[in-house]
């Protein structure tokens, strides 16, 4: 945390409270990045330096580089949290624990008023939602594959990767698989695995995705798991497909309800945003127009 921001810690202390009202807010750390106050209380200033810091924080948290869309999303999150933060401040949420609690509750109610649980939707509404958002109602892709394991226990992790790469070069259709690689303590072939099942067995490494992109019937790799390195050969694969409405009914109802809540919160935030001026110094004025 930069040492040149004397108020940071005090502000952080208020951040948890804000979290209650930021329904759906993702970037927990964004409020840490509050800048020195802009000229006016009603003006929110976004500078290139701020965007850089948001991006850095994102990298720290996720380990991946935000692309331009993700960067814009980070900025929008920042603006949203900054508005709510100032609202909270104007309600003097920083004065005393009791007051904080009371105000917080009021604030929560304030958001909830709009985000009340929607009424039970009729079938036509749900069918329409199923059609409008097919990407939410997919049966996952499935893949079957064999693999050969290279354990870091006998080498280093890098040694295991190199050994796997080496073996791949020599591997032919007639290779004696029994003479290659190391004993794998679980199974040597997996059938009809979804991405989630792969994470369950192997951990969130490249082996959870690689079989879905690899050429069928060919040995490829090395791919990494939470255990070591593997060569894989995909034997069968089925892409994800849209679930028929009848099969997806519960999913559709849940998704629709959750979407209604999101929309209600969104509406509330839009009302709020009419009270603020957003100044985007990180992009040209042309683009900054909503």
């Amino acid at each position, binding site marked *: *945390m930069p040492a040149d921001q004397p108020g*940071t810690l005090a502000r*952080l*202390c208020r*951040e*948890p*409270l804000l*979290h*209650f*009202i*930021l*329904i*759906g*807010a*993702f970037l*927990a*750390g964004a409020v*840490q990045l509050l800048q020195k106050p802009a000229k006016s209380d009603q003006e929110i200033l976004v500078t290139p330096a701020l965007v850089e810091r948001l991006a850095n924080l994102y990298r720290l*948290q996720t380990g991946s580089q935000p692309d331009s869309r993700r960067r814009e999303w980070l900025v929008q999150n920042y603006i949203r949290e900054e508005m709510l933060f100032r609202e909270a401040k104007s309600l003097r949420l920083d004065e005393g624990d009791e007051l904080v*609690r*009371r105000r*917080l*509750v009021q604030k929560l*109610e304030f958001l*909830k008023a709009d985000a009340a649980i929607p009424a039970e939707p009729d079938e036509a509404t749900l069918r329409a939602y199923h059609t409008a958002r097919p990407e939410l109602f997919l049966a996952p892709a499935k893949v079957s594959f*064999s693999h*050969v*394991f290279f*354990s*870091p*226990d006998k080498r*280093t*992790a890098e040694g295991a990767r190199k050994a796997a790469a080496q073996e791949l070069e020599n591997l032919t259709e007639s290779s004696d*698989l*029994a*003479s*290659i*690689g*190391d*004993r*794998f*303590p*679980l*199974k*040597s*072939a997996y059938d009809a695995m979804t991405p*989630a099942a792969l*994470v*369950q*067995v*192997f*951990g*969130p*490494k490249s082996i959870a995705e690689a079989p879905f992109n690899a050429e069928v019937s060919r040995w490829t790799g090395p791919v990494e*798991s*939470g*255990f*070591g390195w593997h060569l894989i050969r995909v034997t069968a694969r089925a892409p994800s497909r849209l679930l028929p409405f009848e099969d997806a009914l519960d999913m559709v109802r*849940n998704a629709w309800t*959750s979407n209604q809540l999101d929309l209600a919160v969104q509406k509330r935030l839009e009302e709020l945003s009419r009270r603020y001026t957003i100044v985007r110094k990180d992009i040209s004025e042309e683009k900054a127009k909503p």
Partner: protein
Amino acid sequence: MNSRWSKPALCSVALLVFVGPALAQAPERIAFFGDIHLHTSYSTDAFLLMTRTTPDDSYRFAQGQEVEYLGHRVKRKAPLDFLAVTDHAEYLGVVRMALKPDGPLKGTRWGDWLAGDTVEGSAAAYKELLKASGESAKIDEFENPALQKSAWDEYVAYADKYYAPGRFTTFVAFEWTSAPGNQNLHRNVIFRGKGPDVPFSSKESNDPEQLWAYMERQRKAGLTLLAIPHNGNASNGLMFSTEKTLSGAPITRDYLERRRANEPLTEVAQVKGQSETHPLLSPNDEFASFELYEYLIGVPRKANFATGSYIRQAYGAGQALQEKFGINPFKLGLVGGTDFHSGVSATEESAYPGSHGNQDPKTLATITATTSIGGEPPVGASAAALTGVWAEANTREAIFDALQRKETFGTSGGRIQVRFFGGWNFGSDTLSRPDWVRRAYTEGVPMGDDLKAGPAGLAPTFIVQALKDPDSGNLDRVQIIKVETRGGVSKEQVFDVAWSGDRKPDLTGKLPSVGNTVDLAKASYENSIGAVELMGTWQDPTFDPSASATYYARAIEIPTPRWSTRWAVELGSPLNPEAPPMLQERAWTSPIWYTPPGIAR
């Protein structure tokens, strides 16, 4: 190990196509992971802590779906295979009715407190709830059988809705929440298939003998069920007491038999600490000081634990009772559960979102607090634990039966897989054989079972295999812990069986530490030390054929940052000295028991 047994298996995949399934081996038991101890807003206390999740959320979360908890979207990285939601039987689901403006609690003080769904109202109600619990008093407004029944039916329907045999298993279950004088005697009750008409609540009786009577009645009605006591660590010595029954009567053989018949398992770890052992009870166990929770339930008072609180000691106490009464009531298999009051079994150390509603949301205040309503600072909570079972299939029947035969292990929240077998005739080359697991089953017994009678003059041999959690730290070592009893006197020993790297035990037999790669400033670690898999055989070098013995295995990970450290780094807070900055996650297997000839098992 030079075996390459998975390779022939690989070829057989192709072969099977031509020769048909006849050649396929009998189904091998594989490890399934789940949580069998979780609370949602159907638990009165969880609801008053502002948890609003329902079992619906719990079952979706366990399967890897994203759900909302305290305004945050939360998701497991690795889904679970099974889940039993175990809401408190006491007025299960009733207090939620206060959210309905014209609901049944309208016009009562509870209705008034909770009508606005405010933190303050809930806090006032929570205070009243704690008071009633501490006095084991009934709450008149909730004493409404019709209301209780409709809430129970709703709750059971969730479990049935999400049961997907072969893919995801749910159980009908509840927690019987007896805590006389804040001393924890809680039990989770789990049903194999169909659930009961109504659960049994500690408002009816807080005496475990009455719970067993309820369970016996359920069996007569054709149901299959078991109870799992937990948090002996917070029982003030009552959980594994060998002095007298709760009602003050002397211990009898009948009492011990009923206990063993109803309670095959106990929870070795959960959010309120581990109950394996305490460093003061096991001064020679360098890993005993792990996730300690030393308070009574719901009050900031420390629990006594000199006897009757911790499982390792209970293993010896049970063997002493066996010498006296001919039955060991504490042949307890080990499982883990979260006991989270959040509705989400978020045991992944890197993705822990807090576990007790507004008592420990993911905030700076939670990290820095030095106390809580129950005494312990919120950072003391463990992001633990899970149950592993060795079962043939992911179904209610297969998983329940694994629980019943105690082929189970507990983990501190991760997915370490541990196998453990005992026998007399394992060949020295057993582990190098491709089919060693099948042989271990036929030539020996798995965790949870009794060693068969052995040949004279021989000491038993044990096989242990541990495979790391693919999304956590490597393994440091695997140990076997032995508790031996003869003439009423018990002693314990810890043996290192397999470990990573080329470490050599020193002259006193102590294995050097595995090292530490944790960077506290970044809450990160490297798997550059430790092992992916550890296995070994071990023959008991101190075997006394005339003494009873309980053996269990423990697999220990390399140090990794604790959840509280990860939060501190993410939220920019200093570490709270009340919690250790890192931990060595672990798994504990159910024991294998040896009983000398002439003593009944």
